């Protein structure tokens, strides 16, 4: 297993409090991990720091073998990973436009973009929603669109923040099914969550965050 | 918790209300008010700044002055919104009297118009005596000309000259600016254009514009200032007494001296009529 991402130390202050104080950390290529921990334990913050959305104090940060010196991942590395919010934000356009957004940002031509978008929409099972504005989607549907939007970019790392929070029944099952697919297809995932079923997915490894420290389970 | 009803307003509010009522009651008890309307030309020259305070000091009457374009001030008089009006368009003033809105017209002063323009004088009108011919030369040279374009006394004089020349003024260089005399002079200065200006306003603005007096003295350029008192029979509430006082003062020797003695850049710009009204 080759290392996807590693650091020797990560610290994050939150006002007076030291929120995170992590020691050596490593995730492997093609592996899936959940990070569990109580609310307020810093799971979300950890993901956001790795995604480059928040500053953090990181020592000996390496991404796919390359050392990261500025404490933030360089541009191209950040485009290699996609962070999905706990309540995903969909642009006020259409589902198709949302899923194709990252491809358009990469400059992929329209025809090719359409093909890939259709594939991702089919994968997520949201084809019947394709022309709808996001305001008309349920929480579960938004989550699936967000996953399709991320998957279409074939990132090296998925950072998912509580993907099944506030979902139950059918919606939750559908999202879990998609994540299971991602795990089976050997994508690298880092998922912050409480969800029993996700934690117990075959192949899923686990970290536990408590009092600012990470324990591998 | 029991609701306590207050009887009347709290003391501070009562005091404020009383003070406000006192102020409002006191206002109308000011000095006698006289509403006068006058055209821009008289204001721009600075003459009114001399005449009005002199009249107020002499009579104890407070003047409320409204300045506007000729059409506007004449309309104020026609509607009885002012007690008297000062302008320089004899036909409009006489119309006020003939329609019964005005009681009587008096001549106040006179001066004249100049044709002014750039020093280079592309139309070659410098020193000419015939204003109408000069306008024709300006037209033929297609030189730049700025018109008041606002139906003011100056504009009406300009239109009269074109009409006498048999010309409809419409060419690329002819600009119709809806502005007062001072602003038109400034514009003519910017454009290095010709324009028609009264002696007084030109004296005030000449230095700023770089324009020169090119033609004067044609009798058709005569410009007369008149005052019309508004008819109290038609409009009850007109302060006819004050208007009467104003007119007597304006036509008195004292005021006439002030008018004739008024100087702009050392020059006399208003002249008093030879005989009394």
């Amino acid at each position, binding site marked *: 297993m080759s290392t996807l991402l590693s650091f020797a130390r990560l610290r994050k202050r939150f006002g007076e409090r030291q929120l995170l104080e992590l020691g050596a950390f490593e995730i492997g290529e093609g592996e899936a991990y959940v990070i569990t921990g109580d609310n307020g334990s810093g799971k979300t913050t950890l993901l956001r720091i790795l995604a480059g*959305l928040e500053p953090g104090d990181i020592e000996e940060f390496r991404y796919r073998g390359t050392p990261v010196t500025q404490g933030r991942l360089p541009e191209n590395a950040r485009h290699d990973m996609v962070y999905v919010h706990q309540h995903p*934000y969909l642009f006020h356009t259409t589902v198709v436009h949302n899923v194709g957004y*990252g491809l358009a*940002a990469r400059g992929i031509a329209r025809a090719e973009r359409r093909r890939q978008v259709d594939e991702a929409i089919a994968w997520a099972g949201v084809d019947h929603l394709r022309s709808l504005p996001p305001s008309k989607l349920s929480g579960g549907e938004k989550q699936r669109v967000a996953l399709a939007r991320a998957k279409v970019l074939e990132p090296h790392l998925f950072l998912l923040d509580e993907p099944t929070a506030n979902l139950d029944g059918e919606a939750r099952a559908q999202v879990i099914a998609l994540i299971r697919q991602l795990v089976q297809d050997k994508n690298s995932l880092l998922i912050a969550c409480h969800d029993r079923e996700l934690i117990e997915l075959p192949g899923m490894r686990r970290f536990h965050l408590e009092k600012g420290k990470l324990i591998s389970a | 918790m029991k609701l306590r009803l207050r009887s009347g307003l709290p003391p501070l509010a009562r005091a404020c209300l009383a003070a406000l009522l006192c102020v409002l009651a006191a206002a109308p008890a000011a000095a006698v008010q006289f509403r006068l309307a006058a055209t821009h030309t008289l204001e721009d020259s600075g003459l009114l700044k001399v005449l009005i305070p002199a009249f107020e000091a002499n009579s104890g009457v407070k003047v409320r002055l409204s300045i506007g*374009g*000729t*059409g506007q001030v004449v309309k104020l008089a026609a509607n009885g919104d002012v007690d008297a009006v000062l302008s320089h368009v004899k036909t409009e003033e006489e119309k006020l009297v003939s329609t019964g809105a005005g009681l009587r017209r008096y001549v106040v002063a006179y001066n004249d118009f100049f044709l002014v323009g750039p020093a280079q004088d592309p139309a070659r009108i410098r020193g000419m005596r015939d204003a109408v011919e000069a306008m024709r030369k300006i037209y033929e040279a297609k030189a730049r000309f700025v018109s008041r374009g606002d*139906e003011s006394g100056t504009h009406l004089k300009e239109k009269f000259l074109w009409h006498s020349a048999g010309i409809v003024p419409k060419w690329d260089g002819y600009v119709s600016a*809806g502005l007062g005399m001072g602003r038109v002079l400034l514009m003519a200065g910017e454009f290095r254009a010709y324009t028609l200006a009264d002696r007084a306003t030109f004296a005030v603005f000449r230095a700023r514009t770089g324009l020169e007096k090119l033609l004067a003295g044609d009798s058709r350029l005569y410009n007369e200032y008149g005052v019309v008192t508004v008819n109290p029979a038609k409009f009850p509430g007109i302060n006819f007494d004050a208007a009467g006082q104003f007119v007597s003062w304006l036509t008195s020797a004292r005021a006439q001296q002030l008018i004739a003695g008024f100087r702009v850049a050392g020059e006399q710009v208003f002249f008093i009529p030879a005989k009394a009204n």
Partner: protein
Amino acid sequence: MEMLLTIRQAFALLFSGDPELWTTIWISLRVSLIALAIATPVAVTVGYALAQTRFPGRRVLIVLIQGLLSFPTVVVGLVLYILLTRQGPLGSWQLLFTQDAMIIGQAVIAFPVLAAFALAAVQGADPRAHETAVSLGASPLRAALTTLLEVRFAVVAGVFNGFGRVISEVGCAMMVGGNIAGVTRNIPTAIALETSKGDFAQGVALGMVLMLFALGISIALGLLQGRGGLK
């Protein structure tokens, strides 16, 4: 009943297709729309930058822009006049008493309104919007445009407000335009002229056109609010 007569005359003028009147309306629209077209991209960029970035003097700039919101337009006109007059620093450009001068004046007047609205709009944007864009690989420029699109209703409301401010302003237009018939005479300066001539029918007709514009803006803003974006 002079009032009723005036209003009737005004309607007659409007519908008679009086060329002078419609030229005035056209000039008003042309000048204001071009001024907005020039000012909007700059102002929105400034508003966005003020909302999203931190730099020394940022607060001062925000206070300045908000202070300029109700700055007297005639002072803008005066400053511009001094710059553009023959003896002035930009006199050689010969812009005084042209539509271009009016356009510059109106662009300057509209700028603080547009920037302030854009600033408020972006500040009110969901922070996840920008984060999502960046996370999906958008360049800073693309992410900025995406964020602005997400708050487009609030930004457009600013444009309408800016339009309202310049379409009816008279102080600056009069000073730098000169109210020249067929060239720099727009609706507000024409109203001033007609009023000074005592010709109220024309003034009322033009005033009604302005009111129609104001009403149109009001309705458009109302529709925008209905469609969300402003709460």
